[in-house]
């Protein structure tokens, strides 16, 4: 099968700043792809380029076999988008939202009506067909936005921070839905700031920084390649004095504010020592994607 989305040598500048800078990205069909990166890394611009909403300064975009942005209208017939900002129609009910959105794809009313029960069941909104949008909770609105993106039965779905602002229950519901889509063979491209979300859902992750992909791989590969398997986080007043001591036990120590992050293959020694330090609190955990992300993109704020 051919790749649903191929970005090659993509660049885009705004006022002399290269927001996307020679980016290459190729999606595998039927997989969930994560696009991670600090604010300003070029994630949203990359999505807009991929959808053909804007044109690149250099490079090519191939979306479902169509060159973008020239054939954007054709390609987008089989693409679904869950935007970051809620854009549901507040004057409409749940059903009217789906019906109206389906018409933008040239679908007939009857065709959309036939699909609505499935979409409502999928998004856990069965029985809410006639509810006005303003009566829905934040989680329900996000799920409806997801259902709306599926109205045209897309092959490729873009999700721009689909769970931002949701409570854990609502996030889990969205994740269930996304797993179901992956099970159906859909290709997903997901941006998120939640590393646990990316780790849970994505088969392949691309980390973006300064407009290019700096690493790519499965969450497990990335953790294995880029970070020590164990992390001990140390907090407390005595942390500063203990810093030199920690570095003798651990391969790498990083201080961030009031916390010392110790990365190591053998956590037993540190933990043993820490048990004898009443002035310190600590947390021992396996390394995760967030550790990789922070190592690769740094701890500085990007606003």
């Amino acid at each position, binding site marked *: 099968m051919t790749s649903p989305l191929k970005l090659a040598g993509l660049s885009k500048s705004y006022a002399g700043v290269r927001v996307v800078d020679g980016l290459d990205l190729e999606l595998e069909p039927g997989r969930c792809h994560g696009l991670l990166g600090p604010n300003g890394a070029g994630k949203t611009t990359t999505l807009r380029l991929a*959808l053909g*909403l804007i044109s690149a300064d250099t490079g090519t975009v191939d979306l479902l076999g169509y060159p973008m942005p020239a054939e954007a209208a*054709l390609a*987008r017939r089989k693409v679904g988008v869950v935007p970051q900002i809620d854009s549901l129609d507040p*004057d409409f009910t749940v059903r009217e939202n789906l019906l*109206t959105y389906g018409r*933008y794809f040239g679908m007939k009313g009857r065709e959309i009506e036939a699909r609505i029960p499935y979409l409502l069941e999928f998004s856990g909104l069965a029985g809410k067909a006639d509810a006005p949008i303003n009566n829905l909770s934040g989680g329900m609105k996000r799920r409806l936005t997801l259902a709306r993106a599926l109205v*045209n039965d897309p092959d490729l779905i873009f999700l721009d921070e689909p769970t931002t602002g949701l409570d854990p229950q609502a996030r889990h519901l969205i994740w269930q839905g996304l797993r179901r889509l992956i099970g159906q063979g859909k290709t997903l491209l997901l941006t998120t700031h939640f590393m646990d979300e990316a780790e849970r859902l994505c088969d392949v992750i691309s980390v973006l920084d300064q407009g290019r992909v700096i690493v790519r791989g499965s969450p497990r590969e990335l953790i294995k390649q880029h970070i020590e398997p164990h992390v001990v986080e140390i907090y407390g007043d005595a942390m500063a004095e203990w810093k030199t001591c920690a570095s003798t036990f651990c391969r790498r120590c990083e201080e961030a504010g009031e916390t010392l992050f110790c990365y190591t293959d053998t956590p037993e020694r540190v933990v043993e020592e820490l048990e004898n330090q009443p002035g310190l609190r600590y947390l021992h955990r396996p390394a995760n994607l967030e550790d990789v992300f922070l190592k690769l993109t740094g701890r500085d704020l990007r606003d």
Partner: protein
Amino acid sequence: MINLNWYPVWRRNFLVWKKLAIPSLLGNLADPMLYMLGLGYGLGGLLQAVDGVPYLNFLAAGTLAYSVMNSATFETLYSAFSRMHVQKTWEAILNTPLTLKDVLLGELFWATSKSQLSAVAIMLVIWTLGLYDNFGMSLALLPVALLTGFCFAGMGLAINAVSPNYDFFLYYFTLAITPMILLGGVFYPPSALPAWLADIAAWLPLTHAIELARPLVLGRMPADVVLHGMALIAYGVVGFSAALALTKRRLLK
């Protein structure tokens, strides 16, 4: 190229309007009628015939044109701005196969359609009160209203495209709409103005609309039909083209 891709956008606006039709009708239609009847009877009682007809009859054509203008303008400023900027409706549509041109054409034709309601309401008053001279000729007011709605919808979308917020629209009302109402011949014939001001007023789109509408109410064939009609189309087309370019710069950069 014109195709029917804009229709789902038109239809979306129509469906929303249908849900809120009653209060929206009241606001859109009652206001110009009250002006026309209030001024027509009140002021008309103090005046001799204007242009050879009772003041109310004179006022009817101007009211029709300016209420169509108002309706198309409000729809493309406040309502379109809500959809574009606040509700992000346009951005949601742009993720589908529809293009920005489809969205803006949908808005253009929607605002034009909606403004026709104002025209029909005023025409009902004209017919009911017998303010017309020749019924057949009064029917020709319908295409005039259509061109007028198109003209101001196109211009309104251009203003919408550059507006940072709702307050910005006040400039357009103060600098364009209000002067047009006062100089375009709604309340008195342009011949009442000093010659230099009348020369300027002749260029205003509302003046063109009233130059067409007034003779039709009074049962005369308007002069320079092609000139006035083309002027209305030109203002609309130029406004719409600007709207397309400016909105593209705003949303798709």
